[in-house]
């Protein structure tokens, strides 16, 4: 009995580990080259919010507030310049470290249906769009 359960346990664990289907792979995420700069920009906003709150509640003198604000503005200007240099936050490139995305198409190779956007599977007959469809 113990031997049988042990064999089942081992087989189950090995099967679970090795039987990976393409659908089990996580979707590829697009990574913006300026994401970390946008992140820093958000921190500058946060810092400014804190600064202004402390000024408003009377913890900071006028001079301290103005100096700190000028520094934050300088930081923001530098970040904006850097983001612009890298081509703007809108540019996104696919991550290189993730699974290859299954090819997609706009014309179904099976039923010939046409779609405005590239799809993995046909919206009419559910056939894979990977082969033959125009990307």
């Amino acid at each position, binding site marked *: 009995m113990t031997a049988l*359960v042990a064999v089942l346990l081992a087989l189950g664990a090995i099967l679970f580990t090795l039987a990976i289907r393409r659908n089990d792979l996580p979707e590829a*995420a697009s990574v913006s080259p300026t994401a970390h700069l946008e992140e820093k920009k958000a921190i500058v906003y946060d810092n*400014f919010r804190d600064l202004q709150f402390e000024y408003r509640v009377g*913890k900071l003198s006028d001079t301290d507030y103005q100096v700190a604000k000028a520094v934050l503005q300088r930081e923001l200007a530098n970040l904006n310049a850097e983001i612009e240099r890298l081509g703007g936050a809108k540019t996104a490139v696919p991550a290189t470290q993730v699974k290859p995305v299954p090819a997609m198409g706009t014309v179904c190779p099976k039923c010939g249906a046409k779609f405005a956007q590239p799809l993995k599977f046909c919206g009419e007959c559910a056939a894979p769009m990977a082969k033959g469809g125009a990307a």
Partner: protein
Amino acid sequence: MENLGAIAILLAFCLGIYALVGSVAGAWRQKPFLIASANRAIYAVWFLLTTASALLVYALLTSDFRLAYVAAHSNRDMPPLYKFAAWWGGQEGSLLLWSWLLSCYSVVVLFTNRHKHRRIMPYVSATLMTTQVFFLIFNAFVANPFRVLAVGREITSVPDGNGLNPLLQYWAMAIHPPILYLGYVGFAVPFAFAMGSLITREPGDGWLHTIRRWTLVTWLFQSCGILLGAGWAYAVLGWGGYWGWDPVENASLLPWITATAFLHSVMMQEKKGMMKVWNVVLISATFWLCIFGTFLTRSGIVSSVHAFAQSPIGKWFTGYLALVGAAALYLILSRLDYLKTRSRLESVISRESSFLFNNLLLLVSCFAILWGTLFPVISEAVTGQKISVDVPFFNRVQIPVGLSLLFLTGVAPLLAWRRSSPASLKRNFMLPGIAGIGTIAVLFAAGMRHFYALVCFGLCLFVASTIALEFYRGARAISVKTGQNLAAAVVELTRRNTRRYGGYTVHIGIVLMFVGFAGSAFNKNLTVDVGIGDTFHLGRYDLKVLELREGENPNYTWNHAVVDVSTGGSHLANMEPERRFYKSSQQGSAEVSIRRRLHEDLYLNFAGMTDDNAKAVMQAYVFPLVSWIWIGFWVLILGTLICLTPSRVRARKARGAEPELADELVVAER
């Protein structure tokens, strides 16, 4: 079924190695199938370890004495709760708990980050699995909890087990080890993320936000574990102490200190991009100290009241500690360019410098504790003589360091980022300063002459005033703007910035604990041999022994006393301390009686009977203000939970609403 647990552990070990190799190879060769398969293996490791743990617990609950572990750490008459707690009552079970908790953390990390941190996740998995495999080596080959009792090739059994150590048969002790382990094991996750980010040179601090929250949860568990241990020592060991600078206690405090330092200095990295190297060093040190703490607890290299184990696992731990230290050091040194700081310290009088001093003091405290803990081992290696470092050494160093940290707790929130002008300093420090100095003056005038107690009480009021002022100023600003009353404004204020005001709440908890610590300067104690009708006095209390009884049940024999407590002729309470002697383990334990009040505890311990069995040896203690330590603990938990709740402003921002204040900055920039 007795072999099934061992097989599950062996399978988990094999899959752990596969997950480790698969994650690294998958990331290196960019094979998403291999990475996904390695991730599956991590889930399988968790399932197998859960199966093994469930089998061990089942064996304990059903008193299956064919297993050597069950026979050594439980007996038939133990209550089910303590049979369950026997899972971590011995070396083998305790190491299995470590492994199981790590596997739980690993699957939580994998699941919650399945769409995030794509580049670093395989390395995070690999780092976690390295530790997992290390502990699975113990579970499978060195300290297997499924070893069966056998004569020749025949599996045998014993009629009854040895029972659990009686000191562990206490409710707080039933939950103290797993909670402390949740802390110890949890620090593996921030370490894994730090190593992952160093290996891949991940741009940005996105991973840092993930581990900050994680570190906070783990820190909370570690705090609970330490405080539960202190509460257990206070209520069970019979001498009324909650902290004895015992090596095993110190082992749990060391990673807590470095994690505390990290939780403060990480703000510098998040807000200012500073102290990146330092933060990675702190994360690595915290994890290293967790492994080191487990090593101290489990190897028996230093003698401790906990004295869990004397075993040959030391050399394995030494090797792993060297590996972790060397790997972390190599990665940090080879990635110094990646960790370059973009800002510099502008002024000594700034919040940045107060964080820096806070970190330095925590490091001094940590090093002093480490030195004192390891001194017996070092002295034996150098001189051949084992010289123990006693409580006074620790107190001499830790009290001034602790008071300095308390001072910084009050100062830091009042300083501005970058620099504070004399005008701001005067405005912020006037009231709290007067409160602190005024407290010292009043207490001195009232006759208090204990230097450290005076300073501590003064600083406690100073810090409490600074925090109260912070809440008041913020709440008043909201109240003026929205028309809410002050109490509602305080709630609103806290909800708007949970991290800041949760942090202040944690600081209030720490202040309350310091009030309790300072009270120990005025402890009183007395040991007397008393018979029925005898009276003795301690402090303002008159104590009279009314009854002395003895008896037994299947688990233990007992001596029980009933003591009448009165003051100035008026009756206050009857206290009933007890002494127990457990039959299976042949060990004694105390069931102390404590009358808890906010200003002081009266504590009675039935230490035993005199040699002629005619009188009871009674130890009586008065512990002023000790209850504030436990109250502070609950406040600390509350504060940490507030910190973990998302802020309302940040949540709004996450939904896309640009904060109005930030708009002003953008407009100003344009």
